[in-house]
């Protein structure tokens, strides 16, 4: 059964909780079940693959695989969305507390109601389908918190939908790694909302690894108050269709955002990152790097926009899209955009598309490395920069080896 039938044929309430927010999302989708293809961020989406993502039975249960060895971290607190009972931990300096349904609704209501359907489609779909069990909201406060690893997965032959809400209290410093894994022939819809209260800092990692014919719709929504630091390191690979949406809003400016992301596509996969960073106050800072690697017959997309309205004077934003095209049947589309009104700002962006550097390959081969070894070494350095920015991850070398193999 098509996943949208659950919504349009009004069967969704049988499966999930019922709240006003959810009713709102469902009613929006009933009016416009699919994003319009004229919409800029959906223009390049492969229609067949998007339909395949939606053509699964819906299930609230997921299969949670074992933690892969490269993610073992003895110090970390491991949490499974949809499979964790009562998460309330309290230590001397820190506290992790589960949020109540009403608190969650209050937090995400504004985001869901403010933007238009196309921009918010992934979030609307997600919340229409996430059952109460699959919505995890936690409030994190304090210092010296142990690292958090949050796992989210999908089950073979099913469509799973999960939602994560993180409320980062004032003066809190947190290191969080989200690990999303897709089982064979499955789809996962994940929406994450992170609220950074004043003077808080989050080092956030997102590792999304798929499997044969798995799909992911991953939407990350960040709201930063003044004097907050948000650092993201993300990597996404092995999905037949993957869409990572990053929406950062510096609501008062005076905040720092660093985003380092990477997407890898092989075979005939389509892998895309769509980011939007909005500065709604002065002195904002952004440093964004998005890398992509396209092989075989795959299609890699990056669409990044930086919005600097009149109030955002003294913004310093830079965005770089670096792309490696490794096959002449693969395709890369990149579109870094700037929309600026404030005049006293430093904004720049850049984009490059090329293959592996020939001079470097030649140099390495002249030192006795084979072509395959030299290429691998170059790829390793290409990955390294992103992997270094993923927090919590301890077994970086093992992870890199896993990626390269």
């Amino acid at each position, binding site marked *: 059964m098509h996943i949208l039938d659950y919504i349009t044929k009004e069967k969704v309430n049988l499966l999930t909780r019922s709240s006003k927010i959810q009713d709102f999302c469902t009613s929006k989708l009933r009016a416009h079940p699919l994003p319009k293809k004229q919409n*800029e961020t959906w223009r390049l989406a492969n229609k067949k693959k998007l339909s395949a993502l939606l053509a699964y039975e819906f299930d609230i249960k997921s299969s949670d695989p074992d933690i892969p060895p490269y993610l073992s971290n003895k110090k970390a607190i491991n949490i499974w969305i949809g499979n964790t009972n009562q998460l309330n931990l309290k230590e001397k300096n820190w506290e992790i507390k589960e949020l109540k349904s009403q608190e969650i609704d209050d937090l995400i209501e504004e985001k869901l109601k403010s933007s238009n359907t196309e921009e918010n489609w992934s979030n609307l779909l997600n919340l229409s389908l996430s059952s109460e069990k699959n919505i995890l909201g936690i409030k994190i406060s304090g210092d010296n918190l142990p690292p958090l690893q949050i796992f989210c997965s999908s089950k073979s032959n099913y469509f799973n939908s999960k939602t994560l809400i993180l409320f980062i209290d004032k003066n809190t410093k947190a290191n969080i790694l989200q690990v999303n894994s897709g089982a064979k022939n499955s789809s996962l819809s994940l929406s994450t909302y992170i609220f950074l209260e004043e003077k808080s800092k989050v080092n956030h990692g997102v590792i999304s690894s798929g499997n044969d014919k798995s799909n992911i719709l991953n939407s990350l929504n960040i709201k930063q108050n003044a004097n907050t630091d948000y650092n993201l390191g993300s990597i996404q690979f092995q999905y037949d269709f993957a869409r990572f949406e990053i929406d950062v809003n510096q609501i008062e400016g005076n905040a720092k955002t660093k985003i380092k992301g990477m997407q890898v596509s092989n075979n005939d996969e389509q892998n895309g990152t769509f980011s939007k960073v909005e500065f709604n106050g002065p002195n904002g800072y952004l440093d964004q790097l998005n890398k992509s690697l396209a092989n075989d017959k795959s299609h890699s997309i990056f669409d990044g926009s930086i919005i600097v309205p009149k109030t955002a004077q003294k913004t310093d934003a830079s965005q770089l899209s670096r792309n490696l095209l490794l096959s*002449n049947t693969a395709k890369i589309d990149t579109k870094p*955009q*700037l929309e*600026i*009104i404030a*005049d006293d700002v*430093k904004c720049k962006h850049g984009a490059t*598309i090329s293959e592996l550097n020939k001079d470097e390959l030649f140099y390495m081969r002249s030192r006795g490395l084979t072509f395959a070894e030299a290429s691998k070494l170059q790829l390793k350095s290409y990955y390294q920069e992103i992997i270094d920015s993923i927090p919590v991850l301890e077994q970086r070398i093992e992870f890199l080896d896993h990626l390269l193999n």
Partner: protein
Amino acid sequence: MINENLVNNVVAEPYKYGFVTDIETEKISKGLDEGVIRLISQKKEEPKYLLDFRLNAFKKWQKMQEPDWANLGYKKIDYQDIIYYSAPKQKEKVSSLDEVDPKLLETFDKLGIPLTEQKRLTNVAVDAVFDSVSIATTYKEQLAEHGVIFCSISEAVKEHPELIEKYLGSVVPASDNYFAALNSAVFSDGSFVYIPKDVKCPMDLSSYFRINSGDSGQFERTLIIAEESSSVSYLEGCTAPMFDTNTLHAAVVELIALDNASIKYSTVQNWYAGNENGVGGIFNFVTKRGKCLGKKSKISWSQVETGSAITWKYPSCLLIGEESVGEFYSVALTNNLQKADTGTKMIHIGAKTKSTIVSKGISAGQSNNSYRGLVKMGSKANGSRNYSQCDSMLIGDQASANTFPYINSQQPNSEVEHEASTCRISEDQLFYLQSRGIEFEEAVSMMVSGFCRDVFNQLPMEFAAEADKLLALKLEGSVG
């Protein structure tokens, strides 16, 4: 602190080409239908294939929808409220300039484009287009000695039908886009250039477009063909009177460069931009495209866009021939309530093709200036390269500067580089210049001119000086 008003004053020079020439014109009634197209075609005594071309385009246009993706936002155009043909009344066909209405000559004289023999610009041949028709083309005979054909497109239809039939619509097909389809249906005049094999055009060619009536649109069409190993430099200028209403200008320019040929197309666009409250001004929707068909052919676009209330323009290059080269150098200045969505498209199809894009946008007042460009590397564009640079300068905190580059590559053995930055007129630099005794306004204009230097260096001599002055005038009063 920069004095806001002072900078604002630097941009507020009144539009000096805003006069209206009082001349008797022949107009057809407002509106557009098949009958109007047949009437235009009949007035121009066109052959059947051209009428069919128009009617076919009209049919396609009727099925199309006006594009709304551009970052412009303008009031809806009522296509039935436009006069599609307007020509100054003249006695039959003029055989020499002496027979041209003196009022018309005076108009072009006022615009700094003398058409009369004694005042002619040295070494630049001019085709002057007034509303819907071409008035005069200078230096035709001298050019003909070299085999160069330079005439109005209506004349070319009659005298060189084989070239028109072969090339018209071959670069911008009638169904290409909404405005190109409209132009193909109702185009009235424009320039035609043919450079034969192995000829380097002995002088710069130029066309000058003037809209005179407030209620008629201008739909001109330019076609330039450069045969093997030939080269030409073509300049285009445009002005219009000040009206409270918006006038539509939808032009199509087609360039064709064969083996080793080179075409340089330069534009200084200074249509009336509307007043400071955004009333009036030209709606400028232009499709310009060049086809580098031959090996090692080259097409270079350089443009200075300062006018029009709305600018929608993407001069493009189709790089088909091996080792062909496309270039785009642009300065777009918007002030007051002007809106511009402009840029280029570089489509790399052949192997070892190269393209360079340098775009400078200056936004002042409450204007909206967007760069929108596409670089596409096709799967056969082995060993191709592109370099793009888009810089924006913001003057005041009311204007917006946007950059939307679309980059698409399907060829691993090609390189695409894009970079963009924004800046403002820095107070430190202004202070430094002023402390050296340079007047504030001059300092601003020096800095703007420095910002645009990369592009001005590419303009032909006559234009470079004009462009520099034009920017200074346009910016008068806007820096603050």
